[in-house]
């Protein structure tokens, strides 16, 4: 019973892949001993399975939630807006329903639904009206800041997690009650299944579970013509040498550059009305400034002809885009909210869930690939849409029209009355001729700052857009209905074989998605690639705006005409011209060092940003080259002391290190590139066809030394540019 309750809680945490893995393991482990517990667990997971066949179910439940909240608001006479979606209500809603139905007693069904309504009502009222006062009472009672100090939770988290625990406890109590009813009598007796049954059920389970993929079978076009619809709110600048600061590196210039170098032909039109299905396969509309009736008609004609469109919007009616986007999308039943969607905790990591989809296979659970920043949530009024990516435990931070200075943003904090729960942020609609309309509430992932991180996701989206759906939607619906029926039948005829069947189905699904994710190729732009090694543990972070971030180094690679990639595996990537290894914290093994040196000897450049401490971890690379970086802290070389303003301005054109250490070489091959007071700080040598550069300061390539959010050190930018472009080769 306890496990059933915990399963419910885990389900609501939406840890998708691990969830399927662990649930499948539970089922398999208990396959030979069917108990009430198994039955409960299956019932708990059933809504999830159903959701997989019919992703639109979440939209339906959102409507019901919305309607119920509205009725509740009228009943209690509150002026506040109540949440439209709420914390895995969809799961519990269905869970309770199916448990009651399967018991086949109408009075239990009524009792279960009644109990559920009480909990749901309490939770909505609590989150919207009571969480704040209760928190104040707790703080006063204990004279400590209970929310922040002891629990480490803010109001949004308390409003989310406490009711969730309430649902969990209720689920456990319900499970106990059901257990008391001797549910076993409703279940078939235990029997051991045969090998044949095992294989058949495995095959059927696996096949059934792959049905949702039918929807996404798509034929891509590698030579597609892509057309941007321009807007005064966006620009297509790329990082340039005359601007400094990662945040000043332009908006969508790199997206355009990457699409061109990936083989697509790119054009621009000024308005949607100019979209011509004969000349363009994919339209990309970003923050449109105007949308007229003609634009709407042209856009509709474009989509109806089997072409695809990618529409990117932004938060809180920035520049009036909510109106234009709503005009564009309104006829299809979608609109942007006047909000920004924020997770109740600080980060988007683990706070979104995605459907199995060709372009979500590389996403993972952290925000690294999605690069969701501050964007709007999307309201759906039609079941034609698929909510591909939804934020979990996010709230819709209502915009503030008075906050003109800061783009109408709200207060970044959950307040009772704001939507709290699962909000769609990326949705898709497929048209009858196979074209796709993909709408994203945020533009961050496509911008210059983020594109090196999000490229695997972006190229998947673009490639998906270039193709058209093969299997008609009505076929998908029929197959999904059939699959649901078989699953339902399996659940209601609970026995060992069915358990194994469900388990195998789950495992097949999970493995299928894993296989697809691992083996679907990531397409990089053609040209010189610069790999930042993330396979080796290091001190750098891929988060933005931190001292240890490498956004500055990434932007400088773009400036110098190369394309930076983040390399997570040890497998070489084609066209890699330069490889950066920055401040490693674990030993690079001998075999990998050998592999790296081999690649260098074949023409790659290796740049090591290592200090006195981290050099010990690169010993397997440095030893064969007769080179050491001594653990002598030289500090921020060159040490200048206090200087006048003019001297400082001049100094900005010279290199400045943070935490330098001396390089000691016993080989004439090595050439000093930068030295200070007789200490060599940067040295280079040729190795086969390639070269190795050692920057003996593990912080030199970090944002804090090279280039941060608003500014950069010109001397370091120039030095890095010369290293990348090979100025020191001769």
């Amino acid at each position, binding site marked *: 019973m306890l496990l059933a309750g915990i399963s419910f809680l885990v389900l609501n945490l939406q840890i998708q892949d*691990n969830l399927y*893995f662990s649930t499948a393991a539970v089922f398999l482990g208990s396959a030979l001993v069917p108990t009430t517990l198994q039955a409960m667990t299956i019932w708990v997971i059933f809504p999830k399975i159903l959701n997989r066949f019919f992703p639109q179910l979440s939209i339906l439940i959102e409507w019901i939630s919305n309607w119920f909240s509205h009725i509740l608001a009228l009943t209690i006479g509150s002026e506040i807006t109540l949440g439209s979606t709420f914390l895995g209500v969809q799961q519990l809603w269905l869970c309770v329903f199916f448990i009651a139905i399967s018991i086949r007693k109408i009075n239990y069904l009524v009792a279960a639904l009644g109990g559920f309504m009480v909990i749901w009502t309490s939770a909505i009222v609590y989150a919207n009206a009571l969480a704040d006062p209760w928190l104040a009472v707790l703080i006063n009672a*204990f*004279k*400590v800041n209970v929310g922040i*100090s*002891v*629990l*480490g939770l803010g109001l949004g988290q308390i409003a989310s997690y406490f009711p969730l625990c309430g649902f969990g406890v209720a689920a456990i109590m319900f499970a106990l009650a059901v257990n008391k009813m001797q549910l076993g009598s409703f279940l078939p007796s235990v029997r051991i299944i045969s090998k044949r049954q095992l294989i058949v059920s495995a095959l059927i389970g696996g096949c059934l579970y792959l049905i949702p993929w039918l929807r996404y079978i798509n034929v891509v076009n590698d030579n597609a013509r892509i057309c941007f619809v321009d807007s005064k709110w966006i620009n297509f600048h790329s990082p340039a040498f005359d601007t400094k600061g990662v945040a000043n590196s332009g908006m969508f210039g790199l997206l355009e550059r990457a699409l061109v170098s990936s083989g697509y032909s790119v054009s621009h039109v000024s308005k949607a009305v100019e979209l011509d299905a004969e000349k363009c396969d994919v339209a990309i509309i970003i923050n449109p400034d105007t949308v007229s009736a003609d634009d709407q008609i042209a856009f509709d004609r474009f989509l109806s002809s089997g072409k695809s469109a990618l529409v990117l919007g932004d938060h809180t009616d920035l520049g009036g885009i909510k109106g234009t986007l709503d005009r564009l999308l309104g006829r299809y039943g979608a609109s942007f909210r006047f909000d920004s969607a924020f997770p109740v*905790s*600080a*980060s988007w*990591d*683990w706070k979104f869930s995605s459907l199995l989809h060709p372009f979500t296979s590389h996403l*993972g*659970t*952290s*925000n*690294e*690939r999605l690069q969701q920043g501050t964007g709007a949530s999307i309201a759906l009024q039609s079941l034609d849409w698929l909510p591909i990516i939804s934020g979990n435990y996010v709230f819709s931070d209502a915009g503030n029209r008075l906050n003109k200075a800061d783009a109408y943003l709200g207060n970044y904090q959950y307040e009772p009355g704001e939507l709290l729960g699962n909000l769609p942020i990326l949705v898709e609609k497929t048209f009858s001729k196979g074209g796709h309309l993909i709408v994203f509430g945020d533009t961050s992932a496509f911008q210059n700052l983020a594109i090196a991180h999000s490229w695997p996701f972006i190229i998947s989206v673009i490639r998906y857009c270039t193709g058209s759906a093969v299997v008609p939607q009505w076929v998908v619906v029929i197959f999904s209905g059939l699959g649901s029926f078989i699953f339902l039948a399996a659940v209601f005829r609970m026995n060992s074989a069915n358990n194994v069947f469900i388990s195998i189905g789950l495992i097949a699904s999970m493995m299928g998605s894993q296989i697809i994710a691992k083996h679907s190729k990531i397409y990089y732009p053609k040209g010189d690639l610069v790999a930042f090694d*993330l396979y080796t*543990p*290091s*001190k*750098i*972070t*891929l*988060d933005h705006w931190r*001292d240890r971030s490498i956004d500055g180094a990434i932007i400088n690679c773009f400036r110098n005409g190369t394309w930076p990639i983040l390399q*997570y595996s040890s497998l070489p990537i084609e066209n890699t011209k330069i490889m950066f290894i920055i401040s490693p*914290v*674990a*030993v690079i093994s001998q075999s990998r060092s050998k592999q790296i040196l081999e690649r260098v000897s074949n023409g790659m450049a290796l740049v090591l940003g290592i200090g006195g*401490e981290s050099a*010990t*971890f690169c010993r397997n690379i440095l030893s064969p080259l007769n080179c050491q970086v001594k*653990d002598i*802290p*030289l*500090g*921020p070389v060159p040490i200048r002391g206090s200087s006048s303003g003019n001297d400082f301005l001049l100094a900005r054109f010279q290199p400045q290190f*943070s*935490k330098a250490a001396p390089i000691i070489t016993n080989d004439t091959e090595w050439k000093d590139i930068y030295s200070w007071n007789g200490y060599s700080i940067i040295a280079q040598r040729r190795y086969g066809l390639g070269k190795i550069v050692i920057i003996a300061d593990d*912080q030199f390539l970090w944002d804090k*030394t090279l280039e941060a959010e608003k500014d950069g050190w010109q001397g370091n930018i120039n030095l890095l540019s010369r290293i990348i472009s090979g100025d020191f080769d001769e």
Partner: protein
Amino acid sequence: MNRFLWPWLFAILIAGSYEYFSGQYVPPNAIYLSGILIPWFIALFVLCKCYHRKVSNEWEVTWSSAILSFPFLLYFFERTIFLCHRLPIQYADLVAIVLKILGKSVVTYVDPLSMNACAAVADQAGWKSISIALEKTSPGIVVGLVLMALLFTANIKSWERRFIFFFSCTGVIIVWSAVKVAGSILLYVGTKWIASFWNPICEIALFIPISILLALLTKVTVTGQGAKAFPVLPQKFLKANVLTLFTFFIFILLNYYIPLGSRVNGKVLLDDFHSNWEWSKVDFGRDSYGERATYSANAYRQLLQKYWTVDVNSNVSLDAIPLSDYKVIILKTPTKPYSNKEKSALLSYARSGGSLYLLGDHTNLFGMSTYLNVIAKESGLEFEFNDQFDLTTQDTTKPEYSFLWNHPISSHLARLTFLTSCTLKCPLGSDIITGRGMGVEPVDYSHVHFFGNIKVDPDENWGAFVQMASVFYGKGQVMAFADSTCISTFCIYDDCKPSLAIAAVDFLNRNYVHGEVWQWMRSRSWWLVALIGFVFLLAPIRPGILVPVSAFVAILFVLGLSNINYTQFPLPIRFANKAICFDSSLSGARIARMLDNSNEAINDDHVYDMWFLNFLRLGYEPYYDNPLRLDGFPKLRVIIHPQSAALTESRKQKLLHDIKSGQKYIILCELSSVSEREMIEKILTACNVSFYFKDVLIDKASESSWSIVINGDSECLTVNAENGEKFEIIRVKIGDGELTLLNGCEIFNRKSLGPIYNATTKRQRSLCEVEYAIIRYCFHDGSLSTIKERALEVVAD
């Protein structure tokens, strides 16, 4: 099953609550105390019930007596387990295995800077380096559970089964602690919520599942042993019990009693030859401003000179002077290394009975930790290359002393604020000051003064660390203190820092006969703990009330030793003839955080540190209250922004008695404040002074200015200068003493006079001149007209 489960749950709750109640990570509060008391009272109830019925089950007696003694025994973790931080890399490997099972990519390594075993955990945002240090395992709970396993063995009669039970429990606990660390890491990686590593609710919750495993183990082992009420143990077991207790008390004696030799009052040598920082001979007079004057050790030297003969070595190598002439040598903030000859001379000096006092600072500043460690490491001490801050507020720290035991030196330091120190490594039992709730980050040579980001990161350490320690070395002593800023002129008279300066040198200025032997035994007293455990396993302590009573007596013993430490170490006696005492209990002004450069701190109008320090510039000794317990009346008592609510009847009578007996008082106030007017009214009424307050409108504005008019014998000066300076001075004679009121005192606060180490503007300097005139007036060395002249000379910047 339940009867075996509850005791383990109680143990987790008590140990977890104790860890937080003792302030290891977060400030203690009453919730944690209830986590200790509730299970404790339940255990007391169960044990009483067992004794009352006299037919109880042996297991109930065992667990309830163990739980009763548990909180007392946990106290002994404070100076032992909680001070440990590093774990072997093999433990990090264990955590890595758990993480790998959970599907994470992880690599372990030893961080070359902090020497922590670390795990680098991969997620899509890069690698997260996380130190696998003891504090991440919840050491209180882990070692507490091991202790409980040991106590529960009292219920098992066969020694083989006792060994099996104890070591299997220990194994389970260690493995689970690795699971717990892995769980915390996943929580952190998923949420970026670093407090999840020390949040008490997370910590306790993550350990609850282990109680089921341990209960199963207990059930399997204990069942079938036969239940007997209060078994009579064989005679040999009783002897073993006595031996265990005796050993335990020896352990306490070695670590909690601090032997004090005979006071010799020998000469003190301050070494400036190796130090180009905290200079000992920089004058600090009325025109001394700026970094060199305020960061000097001049005031420190002068304070020591009031007790002992102090020489300064400015230009001679230490091996070239007769060190044996001195009893204490202070090696402070070296900025250049000691030669091998000097090192030999100093160590030989210490071995033959001399005392070395090593003063270092944070982050190997100017290389001082490197230079000091050459000597310190020989004696078992070590300055670590790091800096520290408050874990939850990132502010400077105050040491939280133990509520039962204090070192003779720390017993005189009720109120002490560190600026920023490093931490010390020291042998068991040699700690003097331990800071808790600290975050510690390793040196970062790329930052100014080598600080890090003054924010705790997951690859760093936190918890309790030693900041002052002392060991016997040969016939002498070596003492290390980790924050040399505490001796700087600008803050040497702050809070209890004068007591620290005097108590430390007084502690060293003694002859010890058996110090070396004591040190040898103390540093090996871990073996006694092992012996106690071994005897426990071989011959269990009889379960029952004897266990908690013994633990309670042990605590009383510690308390007694603390009292002995305190009473046998009074500070040297001296008269307060030049002392100026700031009465903090009656004042609303705050003791400054002197190195806080935030706008909020610089503009804090209730901070009067420069006013306070200016007494020192005139050659007086300004103290907050009376930290050195000086005899006699101080030359002047100062109250700033008097607080009416603080003046109780007894306090009022004392103040009145002091004034009438000849004590001089100056009260700095703003009469526009109702509370301050009330206070002045209370004092003057008690002194039978006739007066009234006057409310004057300023420049037709609604703002009003309050002043006081004394009817009778008094002197008064009102300054309302064109340059904007407005204040009022009234002096009244009461009995043999005097009361001076300075109304409009805010022109002398930090906002007006500037930061304490940086008074350079003309206006600030001219305001200091006004203050000097007021001080001289208080001592009848100046006149009101001089004050007025100085006030009119104040210039705007």
